[in-house]
């Protein structure tokens, strides 16, 4: 019988997903389509933010939305009502989207017809952080009622995002949410992250967000 030997692997656990994500990113660059992966816990305001984003940017960019939802089409109907193309991925019990699912969802779009596609990921702060979807950037929303301690509980999510939107700032006076403490905690995990305070209800801060995003898209289109 052969002796037991140690075989070096040194490969990422999710290497298949990572490879698929990279090839998707290459295709997006070719087509000049900026793919944004939006993550948050359920109820933090993903759909509301997407609607605000469409309203703010639809005159400048051709926008599509890939909606992941456990088993309903409520969100995609709301988005479609804003005049953007929405495709619904029914994820069943899946807790996250991976590159293969996003790739399948994007088949419903002709990428050449879109400047921006927003993925509304499954509402969850744990699993989506682990899986590269092939997007150009990751964004997350944390809403004020969730509390300023979330970076302590879900550090990975805060470390993989380029931008954090702190939503529902209209609740700030009503809670003990400490914005300064939140920012310090997030910046320790991710010094490069941009933090933008918004309220999808009142519209406060939405201009700063759409400016960040439109600068990103313009820069992306220029570079590729």
């Amino acid at each position, binding site marked *: 019988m052969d002796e037991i030997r140690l075989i070096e692997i040194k490969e990422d656990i999710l290497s298949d997903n990572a490879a698929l994500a990279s090839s998707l990113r290459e295709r997006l660059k070719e087509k000049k389509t900026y793919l944004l992966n939006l993550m948050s816990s359920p109820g933090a305001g993903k759909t509301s933010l997407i609607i605000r984003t469409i309203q703010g940017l639809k005159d400048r960019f051709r926008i599509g939305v890939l909606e992941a939802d456990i088993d309903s089409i409520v969100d995609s109907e709301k988005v479609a009502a804003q005049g953007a193309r929405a495709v619904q991925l029914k994820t069943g019990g899946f*807790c996250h989207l991976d590159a293969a699912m996003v790739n399948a969802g994007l088949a419903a779009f002709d990428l050449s017809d879109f400047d921006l596609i927003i993925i509304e990921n499954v509402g969850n702060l*744990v699993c989506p952080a682990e899986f590269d979807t092939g997007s150009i950037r990751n964004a997350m929303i944390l809403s004020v009622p969730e509390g300023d301690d979330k970076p302590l509980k879900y550090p990975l999510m805060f470390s993989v995002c380029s931008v954090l939107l702190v939503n529902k700032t209209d609740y700030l006076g009503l809670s003990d949410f400490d914005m300064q403490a939140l920012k310090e905690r997030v910046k320790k995990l991710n010094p490069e992250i941009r933090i933008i305070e918004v309220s999808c209800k009142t519209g406060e801060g939405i201009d700063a967000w759409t400016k960040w995003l439109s600068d990103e898209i313009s820069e992306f289109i220029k570079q590729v």
Partner: protein
Amino acid sequence: MHELPVTQSILEVVLRHARMNGVSRVHAINLAVGKLSDLEDEWIQQYFDYLSKGTLAEGAKLNIERIPVVFRCTSCRTDFEVDVRKMKDILCPECGKKDFTLVSGREYYIKDMEAQ
């Protein structure tokens, strides 16, 4: 929650390397996972036992090395380990400043396997 697809991916990578190396049986798989990840060792092993039935890796033991979260002070370049779940008022143990970069804690890879 996402342990099942993660385990499936580990199995696929291991079986690919087993074929490349002409292995007939995998006894153990050594993983390195940063402490920023939420992977439950027990579930990974249970799912692996289930998924690997009838493959070369059936019965293999998964050993997970947890890589600590290490920050590097931007000012004096000192590296130090932190518990991110108790992250409150972290200061550099050397110079007392509080600007850091993340050095480790996001690892997520298969190191090697013991096989014959």
